[in-house]
C-alpha cells in the first residue's frame, strides 16, 4: 500500500511542479530581462502586490474580530454563518465579480454611498481590492479562528482576574498567542489575492494587475509574449511566499 501511495503522491507532485519549472526553464533570459524592464509589466505586478496587501489589511481588521467571535462564542446560526464565510472559495470568481459589481456599482445604495465619499469601484484600484478581499478573506478568517480556538480560554480568564479588561486580555494574551495562525492566514490571503483574476477582471479590467496583463498579452500577442510576464509574476510570488513562510516557521521552533 505504501508503495502505491508514494507512486500516486509522486504523480500529483510532478503535475504541480513540472509546468512551473518548464515555464521558467524555457524562458529566454533576454526576453525575460526586456519584460522586467517593461514599465507596463512593472506597474501591473506592483499593483497586484499592493492591492493584495491592502485587501489583506482590510481583511485583518474586519476578519480577525469575527474569527475571535466564532472561536469563542456559541450562537444560533453559527454553523450557517461559518458555511457562508467559505462560500467565496467555492463559487466561480467571475460570478463573484458580477455579484460585487451589483452591490458596489453605482446602481445600488452601497456603490452610491461610496461614490458620495469619493470612492469608485469600477475600473479602479478600490475595485481590485474588494474583488481580492471577497475571494481571499475566508482563508484569513478560518486560520485565525483555528488559532483562537487553540488558546486556552482560561488564559483570558486569569488575565481578567489579574485586572485586565476584555480589550487588554485580547490584545495582550489572545492576539499574541494567535499571531502565527493570523500571519499564516494573512499570507494565504495575500497570495490568494495576487492570484485572483476572474472577479478582478469583471470589476476592474483597468488599471491592469499582473494576472490581467498575462491574459491580455496572451489574447493579443499569443503564448510567447504572455509567458515572460507569467514567469516573473510566479518568481516574485514564490520568493515572497517562501520568505514569509520561513518567518512563520522559524517562530515555531523557538
Amino acid at each position, binding site marked *: 500500500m505504501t508503495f502505491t501511495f508514494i507512486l500516486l503522491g509522486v504523480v500529483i507532485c510532478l503535475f504541480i511542479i513540472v509546468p512551473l519549472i518548464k515555464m521558467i526553464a524555457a524562458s529566454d533570459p533576454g526576453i525575460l530581462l526586456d519584460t522586467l524592464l517593461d514599465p507596463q509589466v512593472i506597474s501591473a505586478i506592483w499593483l497586484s502586490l499592493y492591492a493584495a496587501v491592502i485587501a489583506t489589511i482590510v481583511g485583518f481588521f474586519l476578519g480577525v474580530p469575527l474569527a475571535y467571535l466564532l472561536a469563542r462564542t456559541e450562537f444560533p446560526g453559527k454553523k450557517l454563518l461559518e458555511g457562508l464565510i467559505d462560500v467565496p472559495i467555492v463559487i466561480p470568481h467571475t460570478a463573484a465579480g458580477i455579484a460585487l459589481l451589483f452591490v458596489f456599482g453605482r446602481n445600488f445604495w452601497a456603490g452610491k454611498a461610496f461614490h458620495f465619499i469619493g470612492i469608485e469601484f469600477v475600473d479602479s484600484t478600490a475595485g481590485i481590492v474588494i474583488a481580492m478581499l471577497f475571494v481571499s478573506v475566508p482563508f484569513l478568517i478560518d486560520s485565525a479562528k483555528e488559532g483562537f480556538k487553540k488558546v486556552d480560554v482560561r488564559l483570558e*480568564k*486569569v488575565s481578567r*482576574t*489579574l485586572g*485586565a*479588561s476584555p480589550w487588554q486580555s485580547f490584545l*495582550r*494574551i489572545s492576539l499574541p498567542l494567535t499571531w502565527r495562525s493570523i500571519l499564516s492566514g494573512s499570507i494565504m490571503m495575500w497570495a490568494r489575492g495576487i492570484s485572483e483574476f476572474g472577479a478582478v477582471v469583471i470589476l476592474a479590467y483597468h488599471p491592469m494587475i499582473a494576472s490581467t496583463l498575462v491574459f491580455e498579452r496572451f489574447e493579443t500577442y499569443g503564448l510567447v509574449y504572455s509567458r515572460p510576464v507569467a514567469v516573473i509574476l510566479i518568481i516574485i510570488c514564490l520568493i515572497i511566499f517562501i520568505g514569509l513562510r520561513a518567518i512563520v516557521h522559524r517562530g515555531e521552533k523557538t
Partner: protein
Amino acid sequence: MIQIKNLYVDLKDFQLQDVNLAVKEGEYFIILGPTGAGKTVLLESIAGLYPIKSGEIRLRGKEVTQLEPEKRGVSIVYQDHVLFPHLSVKDNITFGLKLHKQTKQETKAALDWIVELMGISHLLNRKPDTLSGGEQQKVALARALGIRPEVLLLDEPLSALDPETREGVQKELRHLHNQLKVTTIHVTHDFEEAIALGDHIAVLGEGRIKQVGTPEQIFRQPNSEFIARFAMARNIFSGEVTGKDNGSAIFHTKGTELTVVTDLRGKLHASVRPEDILISNELLHSSARNCFGGTITHIADRGSTLYLTVNLPPDFICLVTSRSFREMELAEGKKVYITFKATAIHIF
C-alpha cells in the same frame, strides 16, 4: 468576607443550585466534591468568570454578583497553572502588577516581595514551558498573590503534582496562608487534603452543598454517602505527632498512642485503611508496631466482606472476609486484638 446566597448557575448538563456559603475573613476554606460536581464553576462564579442565573455573591458586604472580574480583587490559580506561555516568569508576575496602575518602583517592590516570598528569584527569566510542575505552581501562586487579592481561589492546586511534590506544596500553602492571611477557597476532590488544610469544609455533590463544617465535624458526622464512604474507608483521627529519641514518631489521639513513620510534627491527622488492619483473638507478637485490644461494637455485613467497628477507644473500622469472620467466631461485644504496621498509617 464572602457570602453566597441561593446561587444558581446553569451548566447545560446540570445546575449548581441553592448554593449558600459564608467564608470568614482570613479563612482557609475547602470545597470538597467528586469530579464533575461543579467545583470549578463555583470558583469561576466567585471570580466573576461565569454568568450567574440567579442568587447573590457578596465580598466584604458589597454585592458583586454582576461585577466584572477585573474589579473584584479575586485571584484564581488553576490546577494546571495556566501561565501565559508567551511571557517570561517575570512578565507573568508583573502582568497583574502593572495593570494595577502602580509606578515602576511599586511594581518592582511588589515583584521583589512576592519573588522572595515564593523563593523563585532564579526562575524569573525562564519561559513557563521550561519549568517543572512544582515551579509552575509557585509562579502561578506568585502571579495570583502579587496583586494582593482579597480572595485567593485555588482550583485543585495539588492534583496535578506528583506525590512527593504534593506534600511540600501542601505545607507551602499552609505556610503562605499563615503569613499572608488572605481569604482562600481551595477546591479539591481529595478528602485528606481537605482535612489537612481546611479551617472549614463545604461538601459539594450533584450541584448542591451537602454539608458545611470543620474537618472534625465532616469526618465524624458525615451527612452524605459520599463523605461517609471516604470516612469509612479511611479511619481518620485527629491528634498530635511528637518525635521520639530513636527516630520514630508517636501520634497521640484520644485514648491511644500510635507508632507512626513521618517527619511531620504537631497537630495533624492520621488515617489507616480498614483492609490494613489485622484482627486476631490473641495478642500478636510480630514486627507490626501497633497492636491494641478492643471490643467489637458494630458489624456491617457487605456480603463477602464485613466491616467491624472495634472500640479501643477510639473506634477503628476493620475489614474482614466473611470466612475469617465465621472461623474466628467474631460477634458484637467480643474482645479482639487489632494489629497494623506503623507504615500503614498515613499522617497528613
